[in-house]
């Protein structure tokens, strides 16, 4: 039964997104332009060859491309559950979803599935454009290792996303958590510069975030071809984050759902 629900949720998300045609194609165009932007930025700074890049052994463009693509995708994972839930609340469709036979967590989180799939497609498109048009060097990439690390990071991010959705169920807006996600992701996680480039006092804060570990591990896997065995330390750290954040997210969502049912506020926005 959940299988049909899952497919239907993905299909609905696609139909809904595709109904805004300009926005739908704009997303892809925007993602492609970002790759061009990274190329320009890399050309500009590339001459300088920052010392922090030595760890990864590649060029500035590949470094920026992997950081930007990964951050964009994980940002979707961070925010999309809450964002879609906000849309459903505003449209008045949360209660109709919750009186179906589909389990409540799936009904509440399912509307974000298409966005995650689209996020993956866009990430693949950006990487492909980066390699074909701007010669990003992924020739040594260990793809299985990158995939495994990506999945672990996604699980950890999903835990945060669930907490954010729980926040929306209770407070009807996810702004504080979304803001926190943006700040931590783009300022501390090493998207545009390595964590080592941060002031020493801020580096512990950066390493408290799963994405800092994910980005560094992904860059090592994709730029240097490090295997999963070599990156085991990162994998364990990401698994630890996932094990801590996922149950927290699930428990938080269940508690929020119970809270909203008790208060009779499921349909409020």
């Amino acid at each position: 039964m959940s299988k049909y629900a899952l497919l239907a949720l993905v299909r609905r998300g696609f139909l809904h997104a595709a109904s805004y045609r300009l926005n739908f194609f704009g997303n892809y165009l925007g993602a492609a332009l970002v790759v061009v932007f990274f190329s320009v930025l890399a050309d500009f700074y590339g001459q300088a060859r920052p010392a922090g890049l030595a760890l990864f052994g590649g060029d500035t463009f590949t470094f920026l491309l992997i950081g930007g693509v990964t951050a964009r995708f994980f940002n979707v994972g961070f925010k999309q559950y809450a964002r879609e839930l906000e849309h459903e609340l505003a449209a008045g469709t949360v209660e109709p979803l919750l009186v179906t036979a589909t389990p409540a967590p799936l009904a509440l989180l399912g509307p974000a599935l298409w966005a995650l799939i689209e996020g993956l497609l866009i990430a693949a498109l950006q990487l492909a454009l980066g390699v074909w048009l701007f010669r990003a060097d992924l020739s040594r990439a260990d793809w299985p290792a990158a995939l495994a690390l990506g999945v672990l990071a996604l699980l950890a991010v999903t835990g945060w996303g669930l907490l954010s959705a729980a926040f929306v169920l209770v407070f009807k807006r996810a702004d504080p958590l979304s803001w926190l996600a943006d700040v931590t992701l783009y300022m501390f996680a090493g998207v545009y510069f390595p964590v080592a480039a941060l002031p020493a006092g801020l580096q512990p804060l950066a390493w408290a975030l799963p994405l800092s570990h994910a980005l560094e591990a992904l860059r090592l896997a994709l730029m240097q071809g490090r295997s999963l065995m070599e990156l085991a330390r990162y994998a364990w750290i990401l698994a630890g984050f996932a094990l801590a954040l996922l149950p927290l997210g699930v428990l938080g969502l269940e508690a929020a759902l119970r809270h909203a049912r008790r208060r009779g506020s499921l349909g409020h926005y």
Partner: protein
Amino acid sequence: MLTPALEAVDLAHAYPGPRGAVEALRAVTLTVPRGEFFGLFGPNGAGKTTFIRVLATLVIPTSGHARVLGLDVVRDAARVRAQIGLVFSNENALYGRLTGRQNLEFFAALQGLAPGAARRRSAELLDFLGLTSAADRPAQAYSTGMRQKLNVARALLHDPAIIFLDEPTKGLDALTAETLRHLLRRELAERRGKTVLLTTHDLGEMEQLCDRVAVLEAGRLRAVGAPADLVREASRSVIYRLEVAGSGPGLADRLAQLPGVRAVTLAADGAATVLDLTLARAPEADLWRLLADLGVRVLRFGPKEDGLVTVLKELSQAGHE
């Protein structure tokens, strides 16, 4: 003996508010047998929608129990949901950018129907509700009546045994409302034997559709019975309005002396005289004889208010005394 379709025992719910809890339901005990078209009647804030939401597993009651076909709405919520269909009063609770058909196929899948079955069932319901020609138009382009029909179709996708209708004709024009009422009564209750729980502010709708009615007021259950019985019960001291041509001098005094007349009040005097008569029982021959003897031309005579409004006022007054 068959398990009742719906049971509530001492059901209570309080919504937290800035100045303390607001009690929406207070110890409501009620049983609805299978196959009954049952109405919930009461003013705004009486607790009707909360009652439906508790039964639909959307609200957890503060205390008491509620069962749907013997299943507890809190402990067996998932199994309860498989047995119910809910028509929301908000006809906009649809995906406006998706077509009517896409909306139905989506919710059918969420009800566990395989894609082929979802397509067939959606087409069947679109046809049943007269929406086939508009099936492939975005739902946001539908009229209010069409959206509400789509709402009804959504509630029927999984062929539930029990259907909750929360003000299903709200905002519809008279003709569309009448068509929908006819459809609900004939198709759901009479042909398919569904149990229906209806809330509405439309008194005619309540009297026309429901086998029995529960009157809720300030979260309390005031009365349960067939609409006609409730009206008869309350009519023991119904106020009747008599409108006669001309000024009718002395008419009020003569009427006040009749047996069974408790009070007569002059409501308006002019080209026509309007009198409100509080009667201890339904008007009898004495009244008509007097009016005939006086040669009064009666322009209008009947209960001052609709039957169920009278019931509500009576019960509300009794509750405050």
